[in-house]
């Protein structure tokens, strides 16, 4: 070691800066007259809440993989960079799709890019994801999906036979979802500048139903449902990469959710919010809901459907299935009074046969997701900073 153990080295500049910047937050809230007396721990927790509600700051000098993971780093990028630049009321809802009115018609509009690795995996390929992902972002607003665009970024040397397989899968998925691919674009980058094939799709749909779905409408007393076992897609991709030498029959759950959403919305008017549990999994979605509606979401680990293979793989890797991506699973939050009707409607549809009620919405502590563990304890389910599994979709 060039520096001996007796010298005191300087601290990292970034760390000292973080201490300085949060000096204001470090003050404890006063225990004033007329306010409920807070214990020291409660004061500290209140201080943290204040720090968490502060507008996030983009600290990194360069983009890292964490920025694409759908967790805290992605949220920071959106809130510190994209929202201030593009800010408008439609975008600020931060739903899976934008809802805009044109000539008395309500349109849903969305876009999604797909960089999954590997391109082909049990249960589908990047083409299935590219269609189903965008369709699902539309249908969770209650929209009937109509038209899709398809943009391809291909790497020099990519096998045409592979592209054919992908395109055929897209055509089949579009037919199944009842959408038409009406426009597109193709770009090719030099060998080594891409990873085979990236696809972007955008989609529009029309909201004909008299519904206004969204996380902000969620209320205490609501019930949380999922449409089937969670985490299948993420674990399938992980195993397909072959780095773990685990053999399993598990396949991706990629599917279009339009039919399931229609059955649900036809059956009950109790639906408040629908989300497609992709990147970041069910945990990330529920955190977004808790924050948007300023409510607590309480879920029960024993009630959450997870296939044994998925649980096993997650146990080995130390990942929580709650954070693992799905590509054809609906999270529905409905008025508590309509929960059983909603559950029955979901189970009656083939895509929702494994549906389950997994939790309820409460008023306190706001902005938080809580889990009753299988073991009988309780804990918080927070957003992850990054994703344990990059490039899952």
């Amino acid at each position, binding site marked *: 070691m060039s520096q001996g153990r007796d010298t005191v080295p300087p601290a990292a500049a970034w760390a000292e800066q973080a201490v300085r910047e949060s000096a204001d937050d470090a003050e404890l809230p006063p225990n004033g007259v007329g306010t409920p007396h807070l214990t020291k721990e*409660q004061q*500290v927790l209140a201080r943290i809440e204040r720090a968490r509600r502060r507008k996030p700051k983009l600290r990194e000098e360069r983009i890292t993989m964490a920025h694409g993971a759908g967790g805290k780093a992605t949220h920071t990028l959106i809130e510190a960079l994209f929202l201030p630049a593009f800010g408008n009321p439609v975008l600020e809802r931060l739903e899976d799709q934008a809802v805009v009115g044109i000539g008395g018609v309500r349109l849903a509009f969305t876009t999604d890019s797909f960089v999954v690795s590997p391109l082909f995996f049990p249960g589908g390929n990047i083409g299935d994801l590219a269609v189903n992902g965008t369709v699902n972002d539309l249908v969770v607003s209650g929209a009937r999906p109509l038209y899709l665009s398809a943009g391809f970024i291909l790497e020099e040397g990519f096998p045409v036979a592979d592209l054919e397989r992908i395109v055929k899968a897209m055509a089949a998925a579009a037919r199944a979802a009842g959408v038409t691919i009406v426009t597109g674009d193709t770009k090719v980058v030099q060998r080594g500048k891409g990873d085979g094939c990236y696809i972007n799709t955008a989609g529009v749909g029309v909201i004909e139903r008299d519904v206004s779905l969204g996380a902000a409408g969620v209320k205490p007393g609501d019930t949380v449902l999922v449409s089937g076992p969670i985490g299948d897609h993420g674990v399938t991709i992980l195993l397909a990469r072959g780095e773990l030498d685990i053999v399993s029959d598990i396949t991706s759950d990629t599917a279009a959710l339009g039919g399931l959403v229609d059955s649900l919305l036809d059956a009950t008017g109790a639906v408040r919010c629908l989300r497609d549990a992709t990147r970041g999994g069910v945990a990330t979605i529920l955190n977004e809901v808790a924050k948007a509606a300023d409510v607590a979401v309480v879920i029960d680990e024993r009630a959450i459907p997870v296939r044994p293979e998925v*649980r096993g793989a997650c146990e080995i890797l130390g990942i929580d299935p709650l954070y693992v991506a799905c590509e054809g699973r609906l999270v529905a939050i409905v008025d508590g009074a309509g929960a059983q009707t909603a559950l029955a409607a979901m189970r009656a549809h083939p895509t929702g046969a494994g549906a389950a009620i997994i939790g309820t919405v409460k008023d306190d502590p706001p902005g938080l997701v809580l889990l009753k563990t299988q*073991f009988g304890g309780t804990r918080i389910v927070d957003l992850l*900073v990054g994703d344990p599994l990059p490039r899952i979709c």
Partner: protein
Amino acid sequence: MRFVDEFRDPELARTLAGQIVALGEPGRHYKFMEVCGGHTHTIYKHGIEDYLPPSITLVHGPGCPVCVIPMGRVDDAIHIAEQPDVILTSFGDMMRVPGGHGSFLDAAAKGADIRMVYSPLDALKIAKQNPSKRVVFMAIGFETTAPSTALTVLKADADGVANFSIFCNHVTIIPAIKAILDSPDLRLDGFIGPGHVSTVIGCEPYRFIARDFGKPLVVSGFEPLDILQSVYMILKQLAEGRCEVENQYTRAVPWAGNARALQAITRVMELRPYFEWRGLGFISHSALKVTDAFAAYDAERIFEIPGVRVADPKACQCGEVLKGVLKPWECKVFGTACTPETPIGTCMVSSEGACAAYYNFGRFTRERVREAART
């Protein structure tokens, strides 16, 4: 799921919790340290504290291998990664750990080739697949992971892989526990002993803790019922006036440890005179380096290592948290300057660190969480 659900049975937990309450001396407060970060993670992940009476506090110890790596070693590793033709490989938990000038993820964003692996053998595989590159494995962990690193070096040697080396940051558990025991402000009544480390070193090395320091230690498994049972066993010792090393984790830990694993370590590695631990400072004979016989696989001899040292900010109170003097939330910067997004102190770095576990899983007072979870 078999072999898992049996150890997470709420019925058994309630029974054990009742026995734990019955064993406690009325009016006495107990502080037990779980040494291992894996235990800390289990405690929060499953909500084990909900089963414990308020008279028992669990203190989260220094046994998170990612957390104890000083920032300067991260900078040194990044320096290696920035050399020509180097591929640095690392376990996933190291990727986000910040050094003085950013993390492995940041270094990768600037162009260094840093790859995540699940095992040192994966790193060796990468070396074989890339003969024109110099592949370095960032070796971290206690005696738990040191054998797999050692065996990988032996395999590299046997297979004649010349472009593979390890940046050795392996540490040993006993000196760290001793450093905590030697601390004058220590207030602990017993230890939940590390399970995985003990599969290698066995239970014998802990004897001095009971003999010289008068603290009971129970080597524990990692499922929630294992930990509850270990708490029960420590309390039982205290109630009966015994002070011993006991093994709760008999299904994995042989009393004498794993002789072959220990042999692999001693073939390839030897003790350093001293090593800097984040949060605890320099501890004598507390870490391993590559022996002269395997110098060809030692990144510290292949590359110029700058030997960077970076202090934690003065506001950081990790040392006190690690010794159980402070609870995570009692640290001045907890949750404000120091968060899982920007961990300025070791305890916030990995999900096994005491502060990160508290921040991620238990940020609200138990009463409020319990109230919300009531149906």
